[in-house]
């Protein structure tokens, strides 16, 4: 069975909701690896969160055995890739571990922005890509139109694409046959020095880090001393094996062409970076596999425990999360307003949300999050360059020569009716129009360059609401560009609240400042005195609101002898105060810090 001729390493690429995970489930079912009872609805999506959101967060893999129509048994290694742009690098490494890809396209919706992005990514990695048309049993299915679209837009042969319904198990055999037939077998050299690509790793409290890899050349077995070429970590292998559905199945040896895992008592996932090359310490390969990149955080925000006493718990939780998530960065920071917390770096906003939810759910923490920001480059007049992740650390304007912000190139696919409103949205977000092409009579592909800090807040939401859900969106980092950026400060009762400061383009400063003040006015309860709320840039106030003083707060009413009821009212009032943050002599509810994240919601 270890004959490379009988191995097929492939993945599935699709736009979100086009049925990737369902197809993966059916493939596992068809290959008879699991009983129906064991079959959870989506076997590959292990984490609860993934199931709820319907997306795959971490790449995973499964090895199945398929007896093809030619009577031979094939090893099918299906590598599942994350479906979100935040994890583009992970996607690219997972693709690099494959030799072919199934492109799933929804028979009703046709090609979407992510379909294109993922197909191009797969083609970039020289994968053999073949399409399947899913959801053909939908009343609105138009498989013929979609076939034409695939041929016209992507240039893939699609006339004999399997027509399937992953949900109802229609056409799955056909897909499996196509995998055997179309995905090329691996062609590694089993006798060459070990060369394996890491496409994921997880931390297990018994085995240490478990490295997910594709063996390109050579062999690895228990006792092999391996070396990670980029990080330099060296370890002795204690176990190798392949992936059952949701479990690790140990084996003697992994050799060229195979997909599997190794465990070597490695303590930290940071030593086994995605994209790194595993080789033998004593007989290293000549050069590492191409494409390795150090993970870089794209979005930063401050995470603070709502209850200051929970700081150690938050620290503990972040430590545990990073065991499994090498792309999560954190370092301690302090805020005058929020006390002790952490500045955390994420791959993107989704990653941020996932981490935040895991902290709240799995570690039962109540968090206060500051406005997410991107990494700005600050060029100082003395020649120094700072990578700014926390607005509070911005040097004095007199020391700044200029600043740069990250720009992404974005592709938005939208139906004709909404082109106008989406273009308007992109303009508002300082987008630079690049091109527009009709990919069919009713749909166009818009290309824009957009500042990353304009899309990390609520761009997805705005896109959806302005296109009634008909727009799809994908982006990738492009470059840093000089930009007129300013730090917007918020003063509450004349005191600057560091946790509310953020960097913004000078043209949007007034508008954002005004809306911040309005929002905060609704969030801050009235005090015994009047509270001015001001937005300022460089010490100059650009917007102001006032929370009027409270004049009356008394139970001037007869509750008879029911003291308990009176007391409860007072206790509620006292409790409310406890949950507030004290800034000067103003008490600010936690919700105020969060509400400014949603400035554009009405």
């Amino acid at each position, binding site marked *: 069975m270890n004959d490379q001729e009988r191995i097929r390493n492939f993945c599935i690429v699709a736009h979100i909701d086009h049925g990737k995970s369902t197809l993966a489930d059916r493939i596992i079912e068809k290959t008879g690896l699991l009983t129906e009872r064991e079959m959870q609805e989506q076997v590959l999506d292990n984490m609860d969160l993934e199931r709820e959101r319907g997306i795959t967060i971490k790449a995973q893999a499964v090895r199945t055995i398929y007896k093809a129509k030619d009577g031979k048994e094939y090893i099918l290694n299906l590598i599942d890739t994350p479906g979100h742009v935040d994890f583009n690098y992970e996607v690219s490494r997972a693709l690099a571990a494959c030799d072919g890809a199934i492109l799933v396209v929804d028979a009703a919706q046709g090609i979407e922005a992510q379909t294109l992005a993922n197909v191009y990514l797969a083609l970039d990695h020289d994968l053999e890509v073949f399409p399947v048309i899913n959801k053909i049993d939908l009343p609105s299915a138009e498989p013929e139109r979609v076939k034409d679209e695939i041929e016209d837009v992507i240039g893939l042969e699609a006339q004999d694409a399997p027509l399937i319904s992953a949900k109802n198990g229609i056409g799955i055999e056909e897909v499996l046959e196509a995998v055997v037939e179309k995905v090329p077998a691996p062609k590694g050299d089993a006798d060459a020095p070990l060369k394996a690509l890491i496409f994921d790793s997880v931390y297990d409290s018994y085995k240490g880090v478990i490295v997910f890899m594709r063996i390109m050349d050579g062999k690895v077995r228990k006792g092999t001393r391996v070396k990670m070429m980029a990080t330099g970590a060296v370890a002795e292998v204690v176990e190798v094996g392949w992936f059952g559905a949701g479990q690790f199945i140990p084996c003697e040896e992994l050799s060229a062409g195979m997909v599997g895992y190794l465990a070597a008592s490695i303590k930290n996932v940071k030593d086994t970076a995605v994209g790194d090359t595993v080789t033998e310490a004593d007989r290293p390969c000549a050069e590492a596999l191409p494409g390795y990149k150090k993970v870089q955080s794209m979005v930063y925000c401050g995470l603070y425990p709502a209850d200051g006493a929970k700081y150690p718990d938050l620290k503990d939780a972040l430590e545990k999360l990073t065991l499994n998530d090498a792309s999560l960065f954190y370092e301690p920071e302090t805020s005058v307003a929020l006390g002790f917390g952490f500045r955390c770096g994420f791959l993107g906003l989704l990653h941020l949300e996932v981490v935040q939810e895991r902290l709240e759910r799995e570690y039962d923490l109540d968090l206060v999050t500051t406005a997410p920001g991107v990494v700005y480059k600050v060029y100082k007049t003395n020649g120094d360059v700072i990578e700014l992740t926390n607005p509070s650390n911005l040097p004095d304007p007199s020391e700044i020569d200029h600043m740069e912000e990250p720009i992404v190139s974005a592709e938005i696919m939208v139906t004709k009716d909404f082109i106008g409103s989406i273009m308007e949205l992109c303009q508002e977000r300082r987008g630079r129009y690049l091109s527009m092409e009709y990919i069919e009579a009713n749909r166009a592909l818009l290309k824009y360059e957009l500042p990353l800090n304009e899309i990390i807040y609520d761009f997805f939401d705005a896109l959806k609401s302005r296109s009634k859900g008909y727009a799809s969106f994908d982006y990738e980092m492009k470059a840093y560009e000089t930009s007129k950026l300013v730090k917007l400060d918020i003063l509450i009762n004349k005191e600057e609240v560091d946790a509310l400061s953020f960097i913004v383009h000078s043209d949007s400063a007034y508008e954002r400042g005004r809306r911040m003040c309005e929002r905060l*006015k*609704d969030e801050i309860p*009235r005090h*015994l005195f009047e509270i001015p709320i001001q937005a300022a840039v460089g010490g100059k106030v650009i917007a102001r609101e*006032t*929370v*009027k003083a*409270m*004049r*009356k*707060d*008394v*139970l*001037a*009413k*007869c509750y*008879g*002898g*029911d*003291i*308990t009821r*009176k*007391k409860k*009212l*007072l*206790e509620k*009032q*006292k409790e409310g*105060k406890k949950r507030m943050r004290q800034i000067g002599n103003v008490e600010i509810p936690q919700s105020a810090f969060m509400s400014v994240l949603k400035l554009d919601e009405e």
Partner: protein
Amino acid sequence: MKNKGIYVHIPFCVRKCAYCDFLSFPAGDELKKAYTGRLLKEIADGSAVSEGQTVDSIFIGGGTPSVPEAADIVRILEQIKKSCIVTADAEISIEANPGTVTEEKLALYREAGINRISFGAQSFNDDELKLLGRIHRSGDISECFEAARRAGFENINLDLMTGLPGQTKEVWSETLDKAIGLSPEHISVYSLIIEEGTAFYGRYHGADDIRAKGGTQSLLPSEEEERLMVVRGAERLAEAGYAQYEISNYAREGYECRHNLKYWLREDYLGFGLGAASCLGNFRYKNTSDMKEYLEAEDIRKDREYLTAEEELSEAIFLGLRLNLGVDIKELEKEYGADASCYLEWTEKMLDEGLLIKKGENIALSGRGRDLANYVWSGYV
């Protein structure tokens, strides 16, 4: 052993007012009869009133206690007198609404020993009364008042309200003048509170906040206007000989309501009837608020709690601070055998902010402190 107070709750009214969140509702004769029966049994029940217990205040409140037949009230008082010793000088009050009393009823009340009557006047302006959903009009108040005097009531209270929708300084001042003109012994001034579950809630909830935050909602007087009415009202009442002795209460000398003082001074009281609260030293409970349960269940007492000395002290402070006299925290520490040092910092802060003032050994709310009393009290719970 100090004398106890007794509260009797009559949860019936002619119809529910638009602002009312008290335990009261209109009811048929049968229910009223059943209720009186259960009430008599509750009072007669040996566990409720221990033998030899002296009582120097009885308060029949509601609802509208003048809605049921006077005979029912008479029987209730008779039962109380059977169950315990009512002192000769006891204050026996009944709440009544203008429009629900007759000469005959008033005479029966007097005969049964009731010596204080409290009228829910609320306003002397007919538009306001209509808006509140009251069944009476301004003229009814004077009529009832005079009838009560004729029946021999020498201690009469009028309840008034501020903060009513559309209420202006002028209208309030007229109401106050008319009330003073009748020359009652006691006047209560309550602020309208928009409570959840009332008709007003749907109409006015949030209005205060919306306006305070600069909105255009102008249905209710602003907080400033309402406070001004209260302050001007207190001044006017003082001129007329009514001294303020509690947040909402004003009286001629010697006519302070003995029963209500028991609540604020944490003296013992027993509550009978639906939802009535009782407090005996550090033991407290409340009757069920469910009529069916009240009528049928054996054990109707709910929310039993035993307070720690610290809890008692905390309550003694915030309840005592309702009174203009204020509290002597050192004395209360001795009385309850608890330590009040945890409140020192807060007391200092309140004195600094001018919300509390010193009155000899006592601390008491300042004028502004009364406006913002919840804030002051919240530091003592």
